[in-house]
């Protein structure tokens, strides 16, 4: 017999849990709404194509930060994509045995390393010997952050490839390395591309590891051995400044950042979905 009390408890629990979901959606809507509503006013072609102006002067943009972010994330990808995906393929292909297990666990644990700590690592590795802040150091910090995540996601995607494909290939006398590279990895490729795009999107949003590696730069720079500006560090500097005008710039820059990150994620997800649909 279900008493009224038990019934009420059941409804109350359901309502609380459903309420939790609504509670989680509220900040999301608030963040998105504010970034769009506050950022849109300052968004213009000038904002995307001009250098930042000193305090007091009107106008100016985040062009060097935007380019700097792309430059450093691109450089980081050059390092991290081969290493990360390679490690992922290794994990999927040599899934048994002690060493792969240690590597997998290390990658899992490392994927939670605080990004600020990675900044110190890049500082010790590059800034100290070079005796100056540099875009290269920023890129290395981002790469260290990307490798473990890429390794884990690549592994999972390679594992999704049906065993029968490998068996068929080996049965036809195709050597193992060709089977791995041109059958298994080739089949998982669209998924791996999605994982790479998502990793790039994450790296673009990183601020902490760049603060004392790439530092910042008021001017154009495409030199890897010099300090370089990034969109995220610019947002930080604008946001913590006491000037109302700079706050507005922070919001517009945040809108630009969200648009870039969002475009990357949506492209990644669309790729993944298309592949899914085709497989059906």
């Amino acid at each position, binding site marked *: 017999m279900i008493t009224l009390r038990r019934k009420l408890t059941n409804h109350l629990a359901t309502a609380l849990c459903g309420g939790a979901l609504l509670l989680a959606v509220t900040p999301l809507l608030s963040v998105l709404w504010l970034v769009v509503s506050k950022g849109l006013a300052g968004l213009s072609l000038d904002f995307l194509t001009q250098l930042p102006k000193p305090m007091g002067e009107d106008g100016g943009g985040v062009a060097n930060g935007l380019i700097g972010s792309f430059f450093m994330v691109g450089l980081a990808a050059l390092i991290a994509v*081969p290493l990360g995906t390679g490690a992922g393929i290794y994990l999927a292909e040599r899934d048994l045995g002690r060493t792969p297990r240690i590597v997998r*666990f290390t990658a899992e644990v490392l994927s939670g390393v605080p*990004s600020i700590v990675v900044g110190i690592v890049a500082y010790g590795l590059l800034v100290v010997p070079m005796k100056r802040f540099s875009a290269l150091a920023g890129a290395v910090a981002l790469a260290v952050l990307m*490798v473990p995540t890429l390794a884990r996601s690549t592994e999972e995607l390679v594992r999704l490839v049906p065993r029968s494909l490998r068996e068929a290939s080996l049965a036809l006398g195709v050597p193992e390395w060709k089977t791995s590279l041109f059958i298994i990895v080739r089949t998982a490729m669209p998924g791996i591309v999605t994982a790479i795009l998502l990793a790039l999107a994450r790296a673009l949003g990183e601020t902490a590891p760049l603060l004392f590696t790439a530092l910042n730069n008021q001017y154009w720079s495409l030199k890897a051995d010099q300090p370089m500006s990034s969109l995220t560090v610019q947002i930080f500097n604008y946001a913590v400044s006491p000037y109302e005008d700079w706050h507005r710039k922070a919001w517009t820059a945040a809108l630009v950042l969200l648009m870039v990150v969002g475009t990357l994620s949506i492209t990644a997800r669309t790729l993944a979905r298309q592949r899914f649909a085709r497989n059906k």
Partner: protein
Amino acid sequence: MTRLPSVPEPTITANVRLGDRVWSILLTAFGGAVLVVAGLIVIELTHVAQPLSGAVSLWKFLAGADWDPVNDSYGALPYIYGTLVTSAVAIALAGAVGVGIALFLTEMAPPQLRAIAMFPLELLAGIPSIVYGLWGLTVLVPILRADVEPWLQRNLGFLPLFKGAPIGLGYLAAGVLLAIMILPTIASITVEVMRTVPGTLREAALALGATRWEAVKLSVLPYARPGIVGALILGLGRALGETMAVTMVIGNSPTISASLFAPGYSLPSVIANEFAEASGQTHTAALAGLGLILFGVTMALNAIARLLVAWASRGPLRKS
């Protein structure tokens, strides 16, 4: 992987053997790269922190409350305290809400809703930390200052937690912001864990006349508990290391206060604020020392959490 035993020996040419060997070495090298990265992090961190060992005793560094780079006095306690307090607030809030969401999506809501509801959670996880900081500074802090903190003070002001002037910037703001940021991690891992709970457990409880909630309480939660704890620890690991958002709302004051309304400081924030302009080698080393503490704690927590989650999705009952 599986080498077919029946492949006739003569068809394997020297070329094939060479290719296989090169591929195997290449793969192992890539796998080893992960270990190299891990080693690099540990070596470089200790290397940068090295000059500290002669300057300050370990005990003074961990338990001292005085952080004064000018006089080469480095006590990390205010930062450790701030990190722990904000993370505790975050875990309390995000744990309750995240587990609630997971319960709702796996046990109560229609299955179609799950796919839809996971999308906003993914979005929430994809927003960069710096954007959260900006939002926290402009939206969350004024709300806390004007509404939430005065309300807490009126109703729960007898607790030392809610005493003092409602400034907005402080432990509470950082904790709430962290809660929002780690919520997706906790919710999505808890959902994964709950999905591994065998349906028969639920059905048994329901067949005995339990209501939905009673079935959850009696059979789902006890079974999923290790996994949920793992999810919470993973969230905690993220909260401890989160930098930008906390830096922007915690108030950046190296003090220790019992009140959640007071401004404080955290380990990642002080590194972010002082590292680039560190006054000397010892100062840099002290900041790297803070990084080393942070690294050690988050890695240990992560390791424990991963083991728990792995065990929870393949535990004692899971084989049947």
